[in-house]
């Protein structure tokens, strides 16, 4: 294990058992990739939101889709505030902190409902686009046959769900690169469509701007049809129309889940990601839907292109049919991959949310059961995929039906999460927020979130309106939420002791312990120009790592985080060995600190009977430019530094010295020495 084997033979100070800690939680991505992940879900609603809204509110649908996409801006700002408080966002911790555990369970049930419908609606929609494209080809070839979409869409959606079920059971590796490629392709297709559509608008002379007033049918009025006075309140009509368009916002909550993965500088990158998401969604979903409504004749929107609106847009542009077919192929390709990606995101999202519930002890161990071969939570993945396939079969490929129900999960998860963010302004006013939803008024010790309150009011009004107008959503959504609330509550009772233990112990990260034969092998994966070694010991004192990561501006530095585990049976004479700590707690806190700043760290553990010897040896082997450690409560910084330089000196063996600085940090103070 020693860099110099001869030194190991003569030394009584031992260094053995290098273990590299790895976890999927330690990779960070650019703001662009984060935006791409969110857009693969959020942006995919462009392919079906317009069609569903059109069936509900008639030709006015593009105005309301556009309004909803503009409303995505304030919602993104609210999510950004939540992210700045909870690095590991997700609906459960935010709502639990804001509105309590029961509300958090309901919110989780609502978002699970959302995820369970995201898969089917995306899979079916992709199927409809493929069928639409096949029909366009058949029409081009003058073959008088047209496929009906529903049967194929059901099969396609089931196939995609089974494919991603298998991928998730095996464990999917980082997919941000794939998402990035999908979005780049979609941006390209979108740009071509927009430019071509604008040219078409200038060429065509029969363009008419869609009306703003929505037209409801008996189905889209729902129970409101039986409440005549509501139909005379203009604002209620607007709320109803918006409520039928709100499913376009589905997937926006992915931002909270992806925030953990965003690299340094986290908040700045979050802002950039949110801006890209907003602009892309506005243009892609809002813009293309509006252009489709302007260019496609209304009778075709309601019939031929009712389930593949953007394909209809391509086929109704001015120009040669062959080129339009190529463009439709591109749209179908973009749609198929984005929508299929959304199926995958829905499985990952639902599994992630249920895993968080299981981690807090609310779900029993049955849910957390790990696949013996792949190490994935296969019970949860099986359950999610089976439910999604049931939804696909029951819907019989009817996009409108699923779309109606879908909005329930989207809206009620917003209600709980956004209301929690507002409540937390009062409940936890001292809590550090690196981003605030704009429009605040200072009153006494509080920063009243006027902007946030307005957003919550709008969301609550939309959710209540939808309860009245969407019978399918209200019945299925409430039933589902009640069912899952019951599961959570019963499971929590069955698991009460375990939940209590988990609460007492706190969150523990799952870490892979990879043993390395030599120190050099363990460090061989380091690739950056500079290395820093941070020696950590106390799980409750992350100050040294915090200070290092806070000031680490460039991406040219590997940060090695070392825990030297004292080994009692290698004790030398009467030497007092430091007590070993709960290493899982230590490394969990190290990972959480790394996540907070979005910097990758390289955690390793080494067994040794001499801490300073081990630290120096790792620093020399890694050619680290700095050694950073916290102060010891027993000895003080000066004694520690003295011992460190002695250990460093012993290990030089007459080799040329590599410039290195040792720093001992505590409470804004520092003792340093340049070797």
């Amino acid at each position, binding site marked *: 294990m020693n860099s110099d084997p001869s030194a190991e033979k*003569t*030394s*009584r*100070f031992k260094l053995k058992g290098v273990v590299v800690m790895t976890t999927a939680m330690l990779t960070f991505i650019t703001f662009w990739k984060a935006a791409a992940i969110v857009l693969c879900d959020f942006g995919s609603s462009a392919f079906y939101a317009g069609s569903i809204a059109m069936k509900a509110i008639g030709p006015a649908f593009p105005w309301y889709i556009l309004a909803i996409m503009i409303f995505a801006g304030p919602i993104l700002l609210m999510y950004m505030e939540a992210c700045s408080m909870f690095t590991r966002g997700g609906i459960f911790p935010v709502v639990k902190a804001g509105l309590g555990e029961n509300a958090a369970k309901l919110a989780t049930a609502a978002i699970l409902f959302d995820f369970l419908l995201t898969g089917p609606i995306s899979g079916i929609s992709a199927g409809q686009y493929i069928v639409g494209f096949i029909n366009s080809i058949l029409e081009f070839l003058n073959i008088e046959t047209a496929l009906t979409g529903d049967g194929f869409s059901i099969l396609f959606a089931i196939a995609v769900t089974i494919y991603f079920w298998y991928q998730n059971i095996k464990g999917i590796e980082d997919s941000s690169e794939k998402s990035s490629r999908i979005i780049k392709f979609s941006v390209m297709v979108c740009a071509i469509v927009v430019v071509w559509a604008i040219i078409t608008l200038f060429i065509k002379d029969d363009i008419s701007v869609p009306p703003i007033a929505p037209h409801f049918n008996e189905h889209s009025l729902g129970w409101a049809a039986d409440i005549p006075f509501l139909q005379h309140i203009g604002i209620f009509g607007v709320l109803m129309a918006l409520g039928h368009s709100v499913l376009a916002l589905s997937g926006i909550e992915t931002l909270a889940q992806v925030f953990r993965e965003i690299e340094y500088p986290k908040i700045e990158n979050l802002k950039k990601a949110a801006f890209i998401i907003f602009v892309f969604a506005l243009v892609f979903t809002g813009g293309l839907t509006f252009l489709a409504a302007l260019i496609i004749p209304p009778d075709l929107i309601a019939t031929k292109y009712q389930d593949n609106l953007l394909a209809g847009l391509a086929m109704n542009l001015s120009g040669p049919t062959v080129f339009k077919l190529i463009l439709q192929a591109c749209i179908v390709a973009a749609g198929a991959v984005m929508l299929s990606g959304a199926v995958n995101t829905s499985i990952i999202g639902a599994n992630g949310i249920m895993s968080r519930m299981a981690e807090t002890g609310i779900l029993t161990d049955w849910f957390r059961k790990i696949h013996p071969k792949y190490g994935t939570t296969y019970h949860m993945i099986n359950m999610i995929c089976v439910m999604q396939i049931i939804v696909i079969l029951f819907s019989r490929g009817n996009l409108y039906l699923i779309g109606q129900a879908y909005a329930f999960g989207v809206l009620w998860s917003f209600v709980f999460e956004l209301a929690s963010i507002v409540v937390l302004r009062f409940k936890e006013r001292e809590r550090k927020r690196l981003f605030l939803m704009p429009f605040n008024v200072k009153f006494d010790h509080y920063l009243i979130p006027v902007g946030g309150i307005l957003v919550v009011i709008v969301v609550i009004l939309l959710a209540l309106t939808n309860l009245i107008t969407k019978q399918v959503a209200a019945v299925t959504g409430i039933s589902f939420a009640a069912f899952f609330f019951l599961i959570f509550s019963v499971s929590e009772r069955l698991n009460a002791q375990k939940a209590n233990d988990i609460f007492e112990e706190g969150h523990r990260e799952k870490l892979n312990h990879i043993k390395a034969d030599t120190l050099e092998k363990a460090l061989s994966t380091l690739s950056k120009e500079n290395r820093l070694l941070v020696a950590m010991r106390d799980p409750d004192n992350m100050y040294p790592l915090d200070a290092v990561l806070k000031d680490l501006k460039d991406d040219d530095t590997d940060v090695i985080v070392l825990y030297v585990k004292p080994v009692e049976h290698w004790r*030398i*004479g*009467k*030497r007092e060995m430091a007590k070993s700590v709960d290493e899982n707690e230590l490394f969990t806190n190290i990972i959480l600190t790394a996540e907070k700043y979005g910097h990758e760290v390289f955690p390793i553990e080494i067994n040794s009977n*001499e801490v*300073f*010897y081990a630290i120096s040896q790792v620093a020399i082997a890694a050619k680290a430019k700095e050694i950073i450690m916290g102060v010891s409560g027993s*000895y*003080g910084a*000066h*004694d*520690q*530094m*003295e*011992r460190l*330089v*002695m*250990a*460093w*000196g*012993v290990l*030089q*063996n*007459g080799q040329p010295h590599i410039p290195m600085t040792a720093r001992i940090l505590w409470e804004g103070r520092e003792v340093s*020495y*340049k*070797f």
Partner: protein
Amino acid sequence: MDNQNNNIPLILNENRIFIIRENITKADLVSKLVHSICSDLPNLNEEEVLSSVLKREQGISTTLDTGLSIPHARVEDLDAFQAALAVLPAPIKDDYGLDVKAMFLFFSPAGQAYFSGHLKLLAALAEKFNSDFIKELSETNDKGLLLKKVSL
């Protein structure tokens, strides 16, 4: 001040070099070396300085696995580094059970400006006094030669 501390002939002289063949405890050896330095520096309070060294010895060990022990103290009334050396052909045990084969005791001025030099001396001693070098010293019977060897 950084250069001065590493220049062994400036901080150590033959009168402060001892070849210890008799049985002795580490504490007595420390006292002996402290006394040798204080004899040259009458302004130092030997009792206080000894107490500082022993107090430091209670902290993190100053003995290395090579057999070198480096007791030390940062002393208020001092404006230059001072040192004494003992070579022990028959090793003694330190408080932690490690073998002490050579003891290099030194005082450094207490000012913060000298701390870097203090650390530099510790690192340099730890590097220089490796196992082979200590063995070489233990086989040397001449104090002048010992001073020459450690001064190189």
